[in-house]
């Protein structure tokens, strides 16, 4: 599992072909076009500027009206907001995987392509994290992130208290 998580960005950087298999339950590769939207805005019409500037979950509104939440990106333990944010309100084509489990269908974003542009690997979270932290710990960012460390120090790995 760990190796799989680490090689995913390399697999996705490949310019040819569609989404790579991650071996997920009910996995289905998908490529589709849509407008990048703030999910909360699309549902409630509460629409801050810039899709919430990275603080809100983003997704894709397809031409047929379907709203797709981008639940995951190609980095380990990271979501897709950083990857979609530069395209807020714009049309893009995406590559990724749908996975179904317990009656829920979720979408994992692997690549994005703006009109007339090149495919971009959806690993913006770690790319930004490395820049922000001036760190070379990209492979295991989650073990070195201050916010995560602070919570785990306070709550323990099990959440039952410090040291537990």
């Amino acid at each position, binding site marked *: *599992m*760990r190796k799989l998580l680490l090689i995913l960005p390399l697999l996705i950087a490949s310019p040819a072909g569609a989404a790579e298999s991650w071996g*997920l*339950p009910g996995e289905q590769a998908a490529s589709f076009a849509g407008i990048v939207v703030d*999910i*909360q805005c699309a*549902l*409630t*019409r*509460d629409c*801050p500027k810039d899709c*919430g500037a*990275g*603080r*809100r*979950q983003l997704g894709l509104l397809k031409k047929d009206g*379907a*709203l*797709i*939440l981008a*639940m*995951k990106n190609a*980095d*380990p*333990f*990271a*979501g*897709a*907001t*950083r990857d979609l944010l530069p395209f807020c309100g714009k049309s893009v084509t995406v590559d990724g995987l749908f*996975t179904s*489990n*317990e*009656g*829920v*269908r*979720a979408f*994992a974003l692997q690549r994005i392509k703006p009109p007339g542009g090149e495919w971009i690997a959806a690993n913006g*979270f770690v790319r930004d994290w490395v820049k922000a932290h001036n760190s070379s710990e990209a492979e295991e*960012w*989650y073990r070195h*992130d201050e*916010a*995560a460390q602070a*919570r*785990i120090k306070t*709550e*323990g*790995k*099990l*959440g*039952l208290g410090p040291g537990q």
Partner: protein
Amino acid sequence: MRAILPRQWILVLAGLALLVVAIPPSRGAGHRVKLTGEVIDSWCQTTGIMFALGTAHHQCAIWCAVGGIPVGLRTSDGTLYTILKVDKDKENVANPRLLRLQTHEVSVEGDIIERDGLRYLLIDQVMDDHGIVNQTHADNGIQPYGE
């Protein structure tokens, strides 16, 4: 029929204006709910790629919430709700409030909106926080790496 004088019109219009102000804005397709469930990492829960409930998954749930994966609420019947708002805080990526609730069992009141196979939850109030009650680590270790 007796004509309404200009002064009476003003009173009628003022009354209508007060009525409009008193009615809260509609949330469209949402409906009001009270739910109790575990605050979880929605990706691991949805994919089932690792045991995603309780103490076994607490550390991973923290990592995922910090990484911006949507935080959800899973009720005892297995229904997953994606949390978009908590109290007055409408931010839902790496939200510190949700980070502190991760893996806790909570009772909440809010609105759900169903759209294209997902249930979105806008929490107006966390009524009760029972802390972590689902102790799963004895059977499932620490997910995902056992450390």
